[in-house]
Every structure is written in C-alpha cells, then in structure tokens.
C-alpha cells in the first residue's frame, strides 16, 4: 500500500514502531544508525540471553523489514550525506530530544528547502513545544503523567507500572497515522509538512472514558482497586480478573439488552455444573442494570462466580463460554497465545529466517489483512550498517574510495 514511499528512520526506541508499521504496509524504510550501531540494540531481552548488539529481541521486534545504514549526523560529511538522502525521501522520522535536529542544522526549515515534499515526523515524550519540552522521560514517567499508573494496582500499595515497557509505542503509532495523513495532503497542497507526535497525549487518551468522565461529570477521582472495578455511577464493584484452576480468566459482567442471552446462559451453565446459582437465578436480566444492584447482591454474585470459576481450568471456561456466547476469556500466556487456535487458523504467525543465527524466529503477523497486500514482517531486522554498500554505492553513487574514507574516519 505504501511501497512507493521511502522513509528515513532516525528514531530510537521512542519511535521504532512508527517506521516498522509503515514498512509493514510496504514502505521502504532505511534505519539510520550511528556508527557502531544504535544504542537501542542494548535493550533486552536477547537471543538466547546473549547480550550482543546483533541479538536484541527488542531490536528484532521493531526494526524488521528495515534496511540499515550507519551515519554520524553530527559531523559535516555525515550531514551532507543525510541531505543527499533527503532529496529522494518521502518521509523522515526522528525521535531525538526536541530541538536536536535544529542544533545539528538539520531542522525542518533546512530539510524542507532541500525537499519540500518530504514529511518530517517528530516523535517525542511530550511534544516539540510546551512546558515539558525539555523534560526527561522514561517509561515510568510517561505511565505516571498519562494517568495510566494511578489507576492500576492494589489500594494498599503504590500505583503500579507495567512490567512490559510499551508507553512509547502509543506516540510512535500516532506519528505513523499523522505521517500518512501528511502524505495524503501533500498531493493536494503541493508540499509536505511537520508531524509532532506526543507519547503523553497518545497515552493520556488511553485512560479512557470512565476515568475521564468520572471527573468531568461527578468531580470524582477513579481509584485503583486491584482486580475490582467500580461500576461507574454506582457503589458496587465487580472483578475484571478471576482466579480459576490454572490461572486467570477475564469476565467483566455487562448488563442490559445486549447481554440478556449471555447472562441467562451463564446461570444455566452454573446450574448444570451442579452449583446453586443463588441470587443470579432470581435476577431478571431483561430489566436489571448495575444501578439497581445493591452492594449485597453484587457481593453474592461475586461469590457465586468466584466459586464457579475456581472449579474449572482456563480452557474449560473458554470453551464453555464460546458455546454459550458468554465473554469469559483466558488470560493467555505467551505460550498459550502461540497455541491459540484462532490465530493459527488465520495463519497469523510468520517464520522469519535469521541466517546469522542459523535459525528461524516466529513473529506476530501483520496488523491487518488486506485484499491488496500482505501486511506484516517480510525480513529480519538489519545488521549494523548491513545496507551501507547497497545504499551508499548503488543508490547514492558514492565511490569505493569515498566509502573507504568515510568508514575510516568513523562517519559511517
């Protein structure tokens, strides 16, 4: 879909997935690394736990499909080469500290003169302007400021961070959307523009309507409640996650016209399991809403379900729920995700060769299926400067001698 576009990718982990997502849709993405390799190659986990710049699984994950060249853009020769690359590029993505490109003489005002049709996408923690522009961020800082952290964790302990860092992915994906909007618009207005994507804005949105509306409508603050969740506008709580025999299942009981059948089926299931459905058997699912359910009734429902779930495995509950159209789902581990029949049935997993490791690695497949293309990973992430020759010699026309000099002086 985007195979006619060339993207120069100067991002670090704040922006990797932007270029990766564009490349999944076909774009030719050239990752520009500093000589010696991108510092983000030190982010774990690693292939067979070997700490090595060519074995970072984090790097593999978000740089697949890309080609790599090395280039020191802080030196004059490096900057000249970057400017040559800009001439034929459709997009440049960067995720340095705001203002860094300007200090290098590579800001949008300079690059847009070289190629006014090139979209420049800046991905940052907080945005290119504003009071936090110079602030230092990290995963926990973004998770905190966005409002995500405050609402996760147990009430008797501090707010809780995700053990899997992913806050930056939100801003980088918004950057990808903005990039393609700008590419679309450039044909209409005859020139490109700047995209300013912010992880903070993108993640703040993901706190969602309940957290935000509880404040806006009632001036109440949505609190972390462990596995429980307050049914907004009521005083009752129900769990989101439940313990079963071999792990957790998710069931967030929804009431209302759309869930009458499912809730009736759940009662029947509990009874056919030899359990007393108690108060649940007496509720009229056609009529009852959370606002009419008392705390006492909610506690009774929770107790019945806690007992019911604890008698079964994740798989039993999921299979039974599928048959009955109930939304009880297992909290899948990575192993179970790999074995999940629906993903397998759609041919989701993609085996990619890593010749240097003499193995193949299985990757998650494309994020959409399209009738016009196969979206997703096509080849492994590049080695450090793997495409220097291909790009500098064949595409930029540098001579072997020039390449040698640039290499020896540490510019590429």
């Amino acid at each position: 879909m985007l195979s006619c576009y060339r993207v120069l990718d100067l991002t670090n982990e704040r922006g990797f997935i932007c270029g990766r997502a564009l490349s999944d849709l076909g774009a030719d993405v050239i990752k520009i690394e500093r000589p010696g390799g991108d510092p983000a190659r030190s982010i774990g986990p690693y292939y067979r736990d070997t700490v090595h710049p060519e074995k970072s699984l984090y790097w593999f994950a978000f740089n697949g499909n890309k080609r790599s060249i090395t280039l020191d853009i802080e030196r004059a020769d490096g900057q000249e080469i970057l400017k040559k690359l800009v001439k034929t590029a459709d997009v440049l993505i960067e995720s340095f500290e705001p203002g860094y490109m300007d200090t290098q003489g590579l800001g949008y005002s300079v690059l847009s003169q070289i190629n006014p049709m090139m979209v420049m996408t800046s991905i940052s923690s907080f945005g290119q302007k504003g009071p936090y522009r110079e602030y230092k961020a990290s995963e926990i800082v973004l998770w905190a400021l966005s409002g995500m952290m405050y609402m996760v964790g147990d009430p008797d302990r501090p707010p809780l961070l995700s053990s899997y860092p992913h806050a930056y992915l939100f801003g980088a994906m918004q950057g990808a959307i903005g990039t393609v909007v700008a590419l679309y618009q450039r044909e209409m207005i005859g020139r490109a523009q700047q995209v300013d994507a912010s992880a903070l804005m993108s993640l703040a949105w993901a706190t969602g309507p309940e957290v935000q509306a509880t404040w806006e409508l009632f001036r109440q603050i949505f609190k972390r409640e462990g596995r429980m969740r307050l049914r907004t506008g009521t005083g009752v709580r129900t769990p989101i996650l439940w313990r079963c025999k071999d792990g957790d299942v998710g069931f967030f009981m929804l009431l209302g016209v759309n869930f009458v059948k499912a809730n009736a089926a759940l009662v029947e299931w509990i009874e056919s399991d030899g359990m007393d459905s108690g108060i649940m058997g007496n509720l009229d699912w056609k009529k009852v809403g959370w606002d009419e359910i008392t705390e006492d009734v909610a506690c009774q429902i929770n107790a019945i379900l806690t007992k019911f779930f604890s008698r079964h495995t994740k798989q039993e509950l999921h299979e039974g729920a599928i048959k009955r159209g109930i939304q009880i789902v297992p909290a899948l581990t990575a192993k179970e995700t790999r074995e999940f029949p629906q993903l397998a049935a759609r041919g989701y997993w993609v085996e990619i060769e890593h010749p240097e490791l003499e193995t193949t690695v299985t990757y998650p497949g494309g994020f959409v299926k399209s009738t016009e293309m196969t979206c997703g990973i096509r080849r492994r992430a590049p080695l450090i400067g793997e495409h220097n020759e291909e790009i500098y010699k064949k595409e930029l026309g540098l001579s072997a001698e020039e390449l040698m000099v640039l290499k020896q002086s540490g510019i590429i």
Partner: protein
Amino acid sequence: MQGSPFEGIKVLEFCWAGVGPFSLNNLAYYGAEVIKIETALRPDITRTGAPYKDNIPGLERSAYFAWTHPVKKYDITLNLNHPRGIEIAKRLVARADVVGESFTTGKMEKFGLSYEDLKKIKADIIMFRTCAHGKTGPLSAQPSTGFSLTTLSGFNSMCSWPDRPSSPVSAPYTDFIAPLFGGLALVAALDYRRRTGKGQCIDLSQHEAVMNFATPIMLDYDVNQRELTSMGNQCAYAAPHGPYRCKGEDRWCAIAVFTDGEWDRFCNVIGNPAWTKDQKFGTLLSRVKNRHELDALVEEWTINFNTEEVMVMMQAAGVPAGVVSNAQDLFEDPQLRHYHHFHELDHPAMGTCGFYQGPGFRLSEADYEVNRPPLLGEHNEYVYTKILGISDDDFVKWMQDGVFE
C-alpha cells in the same frame, strides 16, 4: 494551515462500541464527511453504558458514547431488517468512499452488504471491517468487548507485584491500541486509492493488531521460552525507580534514576543527606541491589513536598520524574493544556464536558476538528431528503413504515 486533508471523502460508519469509531475518527478529525448508521431498535452499546450525565440513564446521556464520538458525524437511524432500509443503505454506499463496520461477523453478509456486494455498487470502495478475532476462523463471530480482549491478549497480566496476582489496567485498554493500527491502515488505503484508483477490504482482527504491541514478549517466548516476569515497579537498570509518596492523600511522584550523573543530580536536589554518600548507593549495581532501603530513604524526602514540586525540582536538575496523575491532574496538566489536548464542548443532554480529544499528533498544515457527539437519528431528515434526495412524501411514508427506526 491549508484546509482539511480528507475534505470530500465520504465515510459510512456501520460501527458500534469503540474500535470502529476510534479508527474512523482519524478521517473525521481531518474533514471527512462521516454518516453514522444506527438503529433505535438496538442502540450502540456505548449509548447504554455508564457513566451517565447526572447518573440518569438515557441514550443521549452516556459519557461513553460522547467520549467515543468527539467529531462531526451525521447520525441517522436506519432499520436494516427492513428491505427498504437495505436499499437506502446501498444508495449511501454508492456515494461513499469508505464503509466501516464493526458488527458481529456475518451481519453485513446477511444484509447483502458484504465486500463483494459493495464492490458491485462502488468498484473502488474501501471497506474497513473490525472485530475481536477477525472475519475468518473459528472464533470470527464470537462476541467480545475491549474488556475481554484486554485479558485475552495478556495486557491485563502485565502489571503485577511479584507476590500478588496481576492487577488489570482499569480500562478496555485494547480498544485504544487496535485503532492505532486500524486508523493507519485506513489512511494508507485512502492514499493507495488516490494513487492507484483501487479500493480494498481491510480486516482488522483486534487481537492480531494488539499483539504487534507485544512482539518482544512473543519473541522472548519463541527464542528463550520465557514468559513475562512480574517486576512490580522495579527496573533492572535504574534505582531509585518508582512512584514515591508525596504530601497529601494518595499522592505520588514517579522518579527514575538511571545514570551516575542523574544520581549525583538527584542527590543535589534532595540536599545531599549523609546517607547518599553511603557505599551501598555508590554505584548503579549497588543502588539496584539495595533498592528497598533506598526507596524508603527517598520517600522520607518526597513526603515533605507536593508531587508537582518534586517533579519540577527533579526535572530542573535533569532527573526523569513525573506526577502520578489522577483524573483531575490530567485535565490540569500544563503540557496537555499547552497542546489544547482536552476540548470543552456543549451537548444538549450532556451539558458542557471537557473530555473531548483529538489525535495524539499535530500537523503543521492542517488543524483537526472536534465536534459535539451526534444525537441518535439527529440528521435523518438532512441525510435522507437533502443528501439522498428522498421526497418529503416518501420520507414521511417510509418513516411510518418503520424504515428509519
């Protein structure tokens, strides 16, 4: 500013709940004309979900629906179980560029509105389809919400103390991840069509899309057979690292000290108390090893200040820190305000609310537009008589026949 990129693009929204509208909103923010097709016979589930204005349920009173539709949309009610309803839907398709749908798999086929059907009406149509599991496979028609998918995909298991069961993220989190991929695919499809004249059908399995956020976890399992370990608030290569209690009730400031330089500056900010010179905290490795003792000492300092004060002092010294924002803090956050992240809009039933948001990026040549959410069937007359040119007589007659329910 150069006008709206998608001006003139016409979108039909056969969507309910979150992911469909969130994906299509990317087009509406930038000028596309969106017609949302609803039915009063089975309202959008976000219209029937709390929180409600004044806690009083009502189809126009749900903040869930309002929050999901902060853009200009024409809203019509159309009974697709009525033969005339289908005929009208097809007339709308004939003038559309994009048809989005997020109904249970099989519904559109039942209505005679499959991709094959749509192509016959409009050869270069872009059809965007989304559901939890995708449009093929054994679970294609399985009902799901963002709450269940957030558990299924593992996102509810990512926050956990080592000694306790995991704490879910308190939101239908994947509803906010899948549309990032859906929105990107949609915009790319429009660009592709502009260049090639070709439409397409896009199938966004929300499970498949959101697992693209978790690729390192899946690779770690594939290569090392490892599952994600619970880290609590710890980071293997930073200390102090975590939320630290500040003055006030349930107030916290996150601080993250990675390098020796940051540690020195951190110590300066807290006034270099004697314990900071202790060898136990002299190197990153020793700080990480003695993190629990360190955390307690840090908190003895942070507890004397407001969370904002701690953040500002730390950041002034170049130490990563941030308020653990609650909902009120979010609306008052100076950076979000600077970007005009939240918009206040008036709505006949919701009153004035300030939770309406645009995209997570800004363009230098195009402004996004926000607009109050549409009412159910608010634009029936306009769309049916003005846009489609249905005569007033037919409009009234068909209304009485239940076509526009």
